């Protein structure tokens, strides 16, 4: 048997005999399973709730009585963001974003009722999910189990003995690493099995799941290497433990908190109020529908009259007010898109800067990869917002066209006692409007989005692996 | 208590001490007078370090009398310790403080505020080379550390000096230096008790040598004449009574 595997076996035996190590390991496994179970049932109840609300909202929409179409534009529709299957593993920003949206004409509402605003402050302590356990807690277990791997030999003088017997420092380090890597694999296993059980339904996203598995494996392997590296570099076990704890606190806890601060200071996001005012202002500049002499709307009127070959609005074969609504919605919607894109560009820049800290902290790189592959990152939310806006626009324009086609101009402008009834169109029209169906990202997109994170992680892994070589050389020469 | 006064400074009388069911000291009796150096010789497990613990008040005897300069260490450890300068086998001082700083700090802990000159004088007396006084202890040899410890003991001006295996790990020259130093301390009136298994060193400076075996003194020898001890005779006794046990 080679020296490497002998050393690894010896190290594993030592860990098995260390009661504290075994208990800590068992606790972590339990915690992982608990997290998986809790997260799964939590996500399922969220999914059920949202599906129920979605059904209720769609039903209510279709059950509306005969109405003037513009009333339906304001009655609007509620839509809910469904959760992807991988959200049970890593819910990402789900708790922090609103998950329901009210869609109506000429207004773009915010997504509301995120968990963070209806939970206690505890939500800010992090959420117990398999991703959290693997990202934050599992490295700590590896540190506890591995800090003494090399430092112990050095402290007790057994290192000199081994080197004297011809065991190379490289074999020693590789053996210890092998042992710790095996532990890391065991640590990650329950989460991965749970992950498969939760998300591995038929038609599941194999690609993203593979990327997630790969990413977490690389992350845990990285921590195993870091632990062995520090253990080999530091003279005493205690110093190795303290150094590793400090490193963990900085990389996993501190940097991920500092990075967002830097990002949000670097790229300021305009407030909704400012955006709303700016949109109103731009709209006003484009044209003032309240002003009968407004050049834009005068031009639109003339264009319309010319198109239909008539001279008076009243002679148009369609309801001019409906046409006007269509045109108005087109204008506002373009502005909404424009401002949403701008806001999103800022957020993307913020996130990009935040992700850049992945060079400093592998935890950030992993979080990026994990959320991106699970489709629970900012892009995932953005996907919902984009589809919501597209749906809103389509719904509103369908209703506006109904106003143009199904309500006569004369009725629409009448204000006599019976006018209200004459303006209404049949409720059957509401059924023609298709319900909102969220189209989740396909596997290829998710994988593509997670590539930068994976690249960073693999870069870390390679760098740490390469660092083993000089450290082994250093250890070979070490006197004590 | 003045250093020059004579009389019993260390007294152990019929001391029995056990750890749980395991008796360690079994009727140990010995005394050390002012100005006297007593070497307690014994093999592993004879009870040497337990004797030290009893004198320092770290272990409480089941029966018998222990007195350090008239104080019972078990009943009033602080009172007894006030009278004792203790130099452990491996002098452990603060590595990141200099010799001077160590002396000043540890003496301050003992409630003394010696002047800088006094510390210099004590270092001089122990033969610690000048260059080392302001160096951090990290690079000191065992002999140098012992000198710092003895200097601290000197500055405390206490009537009792306890030395735990002082010569282990010292080269012959450092041992000779150390012995001379201990000798000077005793001549000034301190009672010195050293536990050791270094027969030669004991023979070199002790006024009396006690052979400790299974928790009691099995034999005692006193220095006589120019030759002081018959080393060969001592060695025979040591081998027969102590080591053989």
């Amino acid at each position, binding site marked *: 048997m080679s020296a490497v595997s002998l050393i690894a076996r010896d190290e594993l035996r030592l860990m098995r005999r260390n009661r504290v190590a075994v208990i800590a390991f068992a606790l972590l496994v339990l915690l992982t399973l608990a997290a998986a179970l809790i997260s799964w049932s939590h996500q399922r109840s969220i999914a059920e709730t949202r599906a129920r609300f979605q059904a209720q909202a769609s039903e209510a929409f279709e059950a509306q009585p005969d109405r003037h179409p513009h009333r339906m534009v304001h009655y609007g529709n509620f839509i809910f963001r469904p959760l992807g299957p991988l959200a049970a593993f890593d819910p990402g920003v789900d708790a922090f974003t609103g998950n329901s949206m009210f869609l109506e004409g000429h207004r773009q509402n*915010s997504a509301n*009722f995120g968990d963070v*605003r209806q939970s206690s*402050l*505890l939500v800010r302590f992090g959420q*117990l999910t398999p991703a959290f356990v693997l990202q934050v807690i599992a490295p700590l277990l590896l540190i506890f189990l591995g800090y003494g791997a090399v430092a112990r030999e050095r402290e007790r003088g057994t290192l000199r003995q081994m080197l004297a017997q011809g065991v190379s420092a490289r074999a020693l380090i590789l053996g210890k690493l092998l042992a710790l890597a095996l532990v890391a694999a065991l640590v990650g296993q329950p989460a991965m099995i749970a992950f498969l059980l939760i998300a591995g339904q038929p038609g599941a996203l194999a690609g993203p799941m593979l990327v997630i598995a790969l990413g977490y494996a690389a992350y845990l392997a990285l921590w195993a290497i870091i632990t062995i590296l520090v253990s080999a570099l530091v003279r005493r076990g205690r110093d190795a433990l303290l150094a590793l704890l400090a490193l963990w606190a900085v990389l996993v806890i501190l940097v991920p908190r500092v990075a967002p601060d830097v990002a949000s200071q670097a790229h300021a996001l305009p407030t909704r109020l400012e955006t709303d005012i700016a949109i109103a202002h731009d709209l006003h500049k484009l044209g003032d529908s309240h002003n009968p002499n407004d050049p834009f709307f005068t031009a639109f009127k003339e264009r319309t009259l010319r198109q239909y070959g008539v001279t008076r609005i009243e002679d148009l074969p369609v309801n001019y007010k409906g046409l006007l609504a269509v045109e108005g919605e087109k204008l506002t919607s373009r502005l909404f898109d424009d401002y949403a894109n701008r806001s999103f560009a800022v957020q993307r820049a913020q996130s990009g800067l935040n992700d850049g800290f992945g060079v400093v902290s592998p935890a950030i790189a992993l979080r990026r990869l994990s959320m991106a592959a699970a489709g629970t990152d900012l892009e995932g939310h953005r996907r919902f917002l984009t589809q919501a806006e597209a749906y809103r626009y389509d719904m509103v324009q369908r209703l506006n066209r109904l106003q143009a086609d199904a309500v006569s101009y004369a009725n629409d402008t009448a204000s006599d006692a019976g006018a209200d009834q004459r303006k209404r169109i049949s409720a059957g029209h509401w059924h023609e409007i298709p319900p909102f169906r969220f189209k989740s990202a396909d596997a290829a997109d998710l994988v593509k989005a997670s590539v930068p994170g994976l690249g960073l992680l693999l870069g870390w892994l390679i760098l740490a692996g390469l660092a083993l070589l000089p450290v082994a050389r250093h250890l070979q020469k070490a006197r004590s | 208590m003045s250093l020059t006064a004579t009389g019993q400074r260390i007294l152990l009388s019929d001391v029995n001490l056990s750890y749980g069911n395991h008796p360690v000291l079994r009727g140990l009796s010995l005394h050390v007078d002012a100005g006297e150096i007593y070497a307690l010789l014994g093999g592993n497990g004879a009870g040497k370090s337990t004797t030290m613990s009893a004198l320092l008040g770290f272990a409480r005897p089941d029966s018998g009398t222990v007195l350090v300069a008239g104080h019972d260490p078990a009943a009033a450890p602080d009172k007894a310790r006030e009278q004792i300068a203790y130099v452990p086998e491996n002098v452990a001082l603060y590595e990141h403080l200099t010799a001077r700083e160590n002396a000043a700090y540890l003496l*301050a802990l003992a*409630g003394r505020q010696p002047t800088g000159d006094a510390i210099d004088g004590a270092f001089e007396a122990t033969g610690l080379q000048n260059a080392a006084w302001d160096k951090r202890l990290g690079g000191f040899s065992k002999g140098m550390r012992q000198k710092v410890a003895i200097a601290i003991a000197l500055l405390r001006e206490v009537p009792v000096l306890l030395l735990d295996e002082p010569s282990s790990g010292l080269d012959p020259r450092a041992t000779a230096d150390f012995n001379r130093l201990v000798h000077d301390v005793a001549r000034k009136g301190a009672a010195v008790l050293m536990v050791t298994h270094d027969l030669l060193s004991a023979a070199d400076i002790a006024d009396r040598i006690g052979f400790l075996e299974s928790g009691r003194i099995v034999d005692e020898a006193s220095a006589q004449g120019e030759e002081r001890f018959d080393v060969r005779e001592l060695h025979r006794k040591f081998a027969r009574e102590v080591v053989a046990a």
Partner: protein
Amino acid sequence: MTLIAHELRLLLRSRMAALALLLVALLSCAAVVAGMAEIDRQRDVIARIQPKQAQDIASIAQWVDKEKDAGSAAYYSFHATWDTPAPLAFAALGLRDVAPYILRVRALGLEAQLYDGEAFNPELALPGRFDFAFVLVYLTPLFVIALFHDLVSGEREAARLRMLDALAGSGRHLWARRVGLRGGLLFLALALPLSIGAILSHVPVGQLLAVLGLVALYLAFWIGVTLLIGRMRWSSVANAATLAGLWLVLTLVLPTIAHVAINRVIPVGQGVEISLAQREAVNRAWDIPREDTMRAFYANHPEWKDSPPLTAAFHYKWYLAFHQVGDESVAKKVADYRNAIESRDAAAHAIGWLLPSVGVQSLLTRLADTDMQAQLAYQDRIRAFHKRLRNFYYGYLFTDKPFGKADFDKAPKFEG
């Protein structure tokens, strides 16, 4: 040289101790600076919106002035509200990064407006902010562990313990002195930057003292834990590992489990139910006789019932009335929703008695007025303001008083 001075030299000579203290001071400084920068930014934003808001109202006033319809004024005028950060907010940003601190409302149904969110990047909010509360709650225990885990065991391992004990007169005082010194320096490293920040932010003295007391208590808790573990006479490394494990459980694992438990035990009837119900109530008004709406409205607001009856033509007073009736129809749901959130919050506070990390965080955010209670209080202020807004416009609408340019200035002003 006094003993304390000796101990200080001894402590600061140790590279690790000096580094740890320096790091705490730096982190505390950085957190205070970052917190103050964020709060300054929020104050700037609040200041920045005022002229824009005035401009927006002015442009509405311009065209409303032509017809002088109070209804148009009410419909189109959004009024800004804002939640000015408390002086201490920099120390614990709390919910201020995820809950809006600016919200525009108009005199229509409030329940459809009150829960709107602010634009923020959820990815930046996810890990939590870097503020003093974070440094205190999460990082400080780690430094306590670094500085105290080998307090006695380190001396034992260096074989100095016996000698120290043998040096008469030291006794307990030695350890008390060392604990006091380390604890005191840690406290100073945390408290000095915080106090400077607090003075610059004009935090009332009493509040600053309360926070400093909290810092001292939290430090005392963790020092107590390290001393307790130290009494087990384990090795330094075993102490460090045990303490780090305890820290993990107390600040990371148990709070997350408590979060799940609370949200399970106290279900919050989804806030969206309010929105759905309110929308039904509001839109139904178009399909029922308008008199029904007015009757329901006058029943609760008899002060306007002498208003002239509705004609066939559209009148904004009806429009605003059905919005208000819509709001009132969901009052029970609103109360339930809020009660549930409050009980969740109360449960978290209760858990703070068991988990010091949670306790300190919740007390800090309470003192800083950045917690859930502060959010709800802001909502209450918005409600009160919205009520004044309604009454203001009703004063014109229900008496058919023309609403001119000058009247825009008479609108209630939100007081932040």
